[in-house]
Structure formats: structure tokens, C-alpha cells
């Protein structure tokens, strides 16, 4: 058990280190940099020497490996560097932009899980066969819907047609309803599909027939035998889909005009602001790795076969 734990944590750290390095190298090979974009424009009227001086002040004239090492040490001590475009520390930018995105992402994740469970449960109820067939084709509809289109459609329907959610100076909760739905729906689609398929697979297992032969009703079997077995593979996918959620957040924030990591990323890419981008990549990777680590650590709790020291006897 301790070995399993250490192994998974080690893997997570390795993924983080690799992501950090890959992001660093990729950002360095990009043609041009933030300093050129900001200071080389003829309007600034800076001489080549002055620019070189600015470069040196940012440490941009040091060799690659030295910059890499400095960045590693800085990140480990919580110093994400300076945003060249904004001229403020990256940590300060993150402090204002990270919380709203985190809130949006976690609400969307929770909403996606609730939506998934509702879809899977309802479609497995007795007498709901007609609904089941319909619902089972619904996820494939959801999955093929682009986030930006879904966002615009939700605004059209709920705000403009039905007038349920106000777009002009909405309250703090009202502001989040549509973005959360926009993010949650495309995630819940593949999750529900996987959960339904898993439920069907578990329902075909002999131990379900045994439970029925004990006199257990369909619902009893579904909750006491099927749920825990079917949820495990779904969790894995949920962890992987979290990455999708982060990507979706960027688009959603743009569509709904929310400030957050999405807007920050958009600006940083446009300005080649590598320090900001590096920090965003590492934070996204950290979130992704943490979620998947939690999923991995949940497995032995949900499945006793993984927690035991020895394998099954012959």
C-alpha cells in the first residue's frame, strides 16, 4: 500500500517536472519574445544598445541552461517572475485571475458529475426503456457540440428568448449559471456514456444474477452492487477530462466576457509573455496531476482487490 502511494506520488512529480521542462523549451524556441514585441516597436525609439540592456535586466541574454536553472529555482521558491507586458509580478496576476477560473472549473466539474449520474440513473429505471433509448443517443449529441456555440446558444435561449438569466449586470451567482452549464454539458456527455456502458457491463455479471436470485429488486441491485463497480472506470475518465475542462474554460470565459485565467492566457499568448505562459502551464499541469492523483488514490478505497498485499489464491 505504501509502495503504491509512493509510486503514484512519484509519477505525479515526474509528470510535473517533464511538463515544466517541455513548456520551458517550447516557449524558448518561439520566434521573437515579449521584450521585442514591447520595446522594438519604432514608436518607442529605443536604440539597439538600450534594448540589449533591457534584455540583460530580464536575464534574457543568459544561456538557455542558466535561464532554465534560474526558472526552476524561482518556481520552487514560489517566484514566477515578472510579466513583461504588464510589468507586474506573475504571482500578482495569478492572484486576481486564478480564483474565478478555479471556481468556474470546480462548479462545472461538480455539475458534470451530477448531470452524469442523473442521466445514467434515469435511463436505468424500470419502465423508462423509451427514455433510455433516447437518452443513450443524447450523449453523442452533446459531445459533438462545440463549447463556443453551446455558450452562445445558451445565452440566446435563456437570456434573450426566455429572459431567465440577465446578461446586463447579473448577480454573482447568476453570472456563473450559463458558463458552468456550457462547460459541464460537453464533459458530462462522454462521462455519462461511459457510466451507462459500465452499468450495462456490470448488470451482465453473474453476481448480479445471484443478487436478483436473493430476491433483490432492480433498484437494490443498482445501488448496492452495480454503482460502486461501475463508477471506478468512470472516475479515470473524469480525471482525464479535467484537462478538457481547463481548455474549455479559456473559450467559455471569452464567450461570457468573464475575467480569469482564460483571458490572461489569451493576452499572454498574443504578447509572447513567456513568464506568464510558463506559470499558467505549470498551474494547469498541477491541477490536472492532482485530480488524477486523487483518482488513483481513491481506487484502493473503492476496490479492495487493489488494497490487498497478496493476489488472489488459485
Amino acid at each position, binding site marked *: 500500500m505504501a509502495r503504491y502511494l509512493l509510486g503514484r506520488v512519484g509519477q505525479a512529480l515526474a509528470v510535473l517536472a517533464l511538463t515544466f521542462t517541455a513548456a520551458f523549451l517550447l516557449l524558448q524556441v518561439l520566434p521573437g519574445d515579449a521584450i521585442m514585441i514591447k520595446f522594438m516597436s519604432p514608436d518607442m525609439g529605443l536604440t539597439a544598445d538600450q534594448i540589449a540592456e533591457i534584455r540583460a535586466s530580464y536575464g534574457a541574454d543568459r544561456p538557455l541552461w542558466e535561464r532554465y536553472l534560474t526558472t526552476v529555482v524561482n518556481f520552487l521558491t514560489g517566484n514566477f517572475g515578472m510579466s513583461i507586458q504588464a510589468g507586474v509580478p506573475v504571482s500578482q496576476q495569478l492572484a486576481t485571475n486564478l480564483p474565478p477560473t478555479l471556481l468556474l472549473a470546480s462548479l462545472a466539474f461538480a455539475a458534470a458529475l451530477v448531470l452524469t449520474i442523473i442521466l445514467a440513473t434515469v435511463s436505468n429505471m424500470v419502465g423508462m426503456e423509451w427514455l433510455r433509448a433516447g437518452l443513450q443517443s443524447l450523449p453523442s449529441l452533446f459531445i459533438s457540440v462545440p463549447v463556443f456555440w453551446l455558450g452562445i446558444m445558451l445565452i440566446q435561449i435563456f437570456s434573450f428568448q426566455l429572459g431567465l438569466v440577465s446578461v446586463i449586470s447579473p448577480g454573482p451567482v447568476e453570472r456563473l449559471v450559463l458558463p458552468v452549464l456550457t462547460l459541464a454539458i460537453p464533459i458530462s456527455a462522454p462521462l455519462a456514456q461511459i457510466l451507462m456502458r459500465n452499468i450495462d457491463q456490470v448488470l451482465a455479471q453473474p453476481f448480479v444474477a445471484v443478487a*436478483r436470485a436473493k*430476491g433483490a429488486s432492480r433498484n437494490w441491485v443498482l445501488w448496492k452492487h452495480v454503482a460502486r463497480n461501475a463508477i471506478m472506470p468512470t472516475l479515470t475518465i473524469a480525471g482525464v477530462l479535467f484537462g478538457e475542462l481547463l481548455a474549455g474554460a479559456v473559450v467559455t470565459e471569452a464567450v461570457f466576457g468573464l475575467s480569469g485565467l482564460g483571458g490572461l492566457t489569451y493576452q499572454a499568448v498574443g504578447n509572447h509573455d513567456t513568464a506568464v505562459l510558463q506559470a499558467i502551464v505549470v498551474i494547469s499541469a498541477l491541477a490536472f496531476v492532482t485530480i488524477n492523483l486523487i483518482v488513483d488514490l481513491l481506487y484502493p478505497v473503492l476496490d479492495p482487490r487493489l488494497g490487498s498485499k497478496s493476489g*488472489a489464491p488459485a
Partner: protein
Amino acid sequence: MTVTPILQVDDLAIAYKTGDREQRVVHGVSFSVAPGEVVALVGESGSGKTTTAQATLGLLAGNGRVESGIIRLNGTDITKWSQKRLDSIRGAVVSLIPQDPGSSLNPVRTIGSQLAEVLQIHRRGDRKAIQARVIELLERVGLTPAEMRARQYPHELSGGMKQRVLIAIAVALKPALIVADEPTSALDVTVQRRILDLIDELRRESGTAVLLVTHDLGVAADRADRLVVLQHGRIQEQGAVKNVLAAPRSAYTRRLLADAPSLGKPRPVRPGVDTQDFAIEVEGLTHDFPVTGGEAGSFRAVDNVSFKVRRGTTHAIVGESGSGKTTAIRSIVGFIKPTAGRILVDGVDLTTLKGEKLRQFRKHIQLVYQNPYGSLDPRQTIARIVEEPLLNFEPIPAADRARKVRDMLARVGLSENFLERHPRALSGGQRQRVAIARALVLDPRVLVLDEAVSALDVTVQAQILSLLDELQKTLGLTYLFVSHDLAVVRQISDTVSVMHKGRQVDGGPIETVFGRPDSAYTRELIEAIPGRGLPVLAVPPELPPRLSP
């Protein structure tokens, strides 16, 4: 005085819906089970025996439907009952012992909670009373210490122990009828015997009737009062076990009896085998597996096994799961290197061969696997499957290859019509013929048959065994026959090694080992073979060859 039967099935017809079509699989089946009686439903796969049994529990698969007929339980017609109403009698009045203990318990719940569940569903007492009853039941089925077992998960128990848990679940509420659907097919023969004894004992205690579904005529003969023989969803014959076995009226029952690998028909000793020409010599074969985790060390799976096999004869390796027979075979085929010992095939020591030489040598020793469904690539045609081994060795012109493939298929009794078919269009027996053809296409000297007939119905099994016998005669093949089934082994082998926990506990000519076994283990194995109640049949030892697929 007439007693109301516990179960009475009248003119039952069941159909499965596939796509838009309904296919009837059970046709007008009628039988009854009296209180305390054991009735065996016997038949091969596809005979409708399991479907009939499922219907008595109201648990047909989703696409199955009772078309007509009546199922009466204690005189009450339950055919039209809703699932909700059936829930009240399932587990309490009629219960199930399932086929495969390995997958019949929920892997994420403890034994105790799964046993308690049947009591909770039918509201038998409070939490404390249920807990006490769970412990009592576990002790009754021989799972001790019961408190510890109750807290264990299914993966911590062996197959036999899991089946004991399932039996405890089935008898917990003292039902009037237990449906036992192939309760021991997945278990080793000695475990099978103990489990069947336990079922016998418990049903006598509470006067429960049993509907025993089995493909094994031996098990049925030993355990049932009456037999119902099914074929293609129709009853061929029913009656008291003694009468049916002594004087079977239907041709199908006679066929089944003749094909059952009972102990009555040892193979005749073959004349003219050169006593000193050995095709396989195994000396001191030992294999250790490193054990990871916990204390360092190794597990000895095969321990100093030695035997010799004369050319043109069959040597059987017999053992239960975990006996080391599979590891021994993998060494002999050259898949793994043994820790110690020599393996001579045609005088060449396999253990000294490496890389390309070993690969080249493999064509002399070929393997036929247990599972005819998993060992053929579903995307390849039969011609392609049989041809493939030829492509791995020195090139042969395509026309020669095609001819060789056709010859080989003809040898195993498959016509040229099969060449372009895919495995899914073939029955289990036909697939195993293809697997044999594939193994023989390289003209090997030794054929290793790893449980090659275990997954087949008895009549198909008998056909494959007679095919193997004929091929051995005409091609002078040497067989290494791995099996858990002593009855089959006795039918086809000349010599035998009995393995137990990695050691060879008995070895030698078949009649010596079966007649005067050295070890207590072999004696136990022989006594555990079901079907000692089968009459020795007045069937000629040489059945006519049945090569038509």
C-alpha cells in the same frame, strides 16, 4: 396420496428475441420436482437446460420470454407474476447456486455482507440476529474461522470457498427448491466432490428439493433421483436415474452415455511400440518463480519432475489448478527456461537451445490450446490460420502451401468449404479441428494438447478424441496430453504423470497408476471422478469413426 410437487413445469416454451426475430429455444418441456427430490436437467450446450432453469426463477435474460406453458411453484402458477412479486419468493422459497463462483460474488463487498444481504432483503431479524446467523451459516458450510471469513473479500478466497459462500446464501432461508446451475463445472474434481457432498448434506437436513443443471452425466448419475435429458430444447427422455442409465430409450441418451468418459473404457494396450525409442525425456525438471514483495525468495512451481514418453504414444500430465502442470508444459514447449533439469525432444536438449535455433526447433513440437474460441484470430480465414505456421519457417511456394492446407483440413475432417470461412462461423468442435490442423501443418513430431478437449461437449469431445487417436496412428505422433479430467486421460493415454503442488506424486503406465496408485492424492482424485454410478455399457470399445464435422 398425491403430494403437490414443489416445481411443476407444464408444456413450457421459451423464445429469445434477436433483432426482430424471436427464436424458440425451449419447446414444450414438462417435468416436476417432488419435495426433497433431486432432479437433474442434463444436456449439452444449447440444449435449453439453463434457460429452463432460469425461467423457474423468473430470471430469463432481458431478451427471453416465456411464450406458453405454466411454471407452478408449490402449486401456484408464477408464470405471469411481476418481477416485484417474484422478488418476494426468490431467495426465500426458491434459490440459486450459480455456475461460476469466480464471478458470482460482488468483488467490492465482503463475504459477510453478501451473505447478510439475503436475510436483509427478506427482513429476517435485526442487525444482531442477522450477524449471528451469518456466522452460523459460514460455520455450517465449513468456512472457519467464520468471523474472519465474514470480513474477507471474494478475491481472498479460493474457488471452492467462494462456492461454499454461494451455497450458504442459497440455503440461508431454507428454501423449498434450490436451482443448482452447473454448480461445480468450474471447480477441480476433488473440490467438486466436496461441494456436491455439502449440497447433498444440506438439502437432506432441510428437506430441500434440488433442480440440478449439468452437462456431466457422471455428476447427474451420482447425485440425482431422476434425470431429464434435453436436446435442442426438447425433452428426449426422463425417468428415474437407474432406469434411464440401465435402459436408455432415446438414441440421444445412448449417444451421451457412450460418449461420457466414464471409467469403464480404458484404452487397449497398444502392440508394437518400441520400448526404447523415446520422443520426450524429461529429467529433474524444476521451475522457480521469484516472489516479489514481502520476504525475498522464490516459489517452486515445478519440483524435480521426470518422465519419458515413447514415440507414437500418449503421455498424460494430470493435476488440479495450481499443480504446476501448465508451467511444466511451458518449459517443454520452450516458452520458458526451467531453473534446473533437462528436456530432451528427439534427443536434443531443449534447455540448451537459444534464439533462432530454439525457434527453428519449435516446429517439431506444437501446441493445441484449451480454448477453441480464443486461440483463433477472428479476422483471419480458416485457410489463412492453418497456413500461418508455414510462413514462419523456410519459404514454400504458395501453391504447395495451399495444397498442404487443404490436405491438413481434410485430415482433420473439414471439407474445402471451410477454407474461406471465419472462425465465428464454426462450432467449438470445428474450431478445435482447425487448431489441430494448424498445429499439424508443420509436420511436428510431438503435439502438446493443453486441456484441448476440456471446453467441449461430451459428444464433440468424443469425436475429437477419436480424431486424435486416428491421427496418431497414421502419422506416428507423440502426444503430451495435459488434463484435469482423469476419465478422459484414462481413455486416451498410455502413460501418465500425476502432479500435485509441483511434485509428481504418481507416474507410469496408465493401468498401474489407476489400478494401484502410490499416493493418497491419486486415490482421492480417482475416487472423486463423478459417474461411478454409470453402468458399464455394452458398447463396443471401438466406436465407428465420426469424422464428419
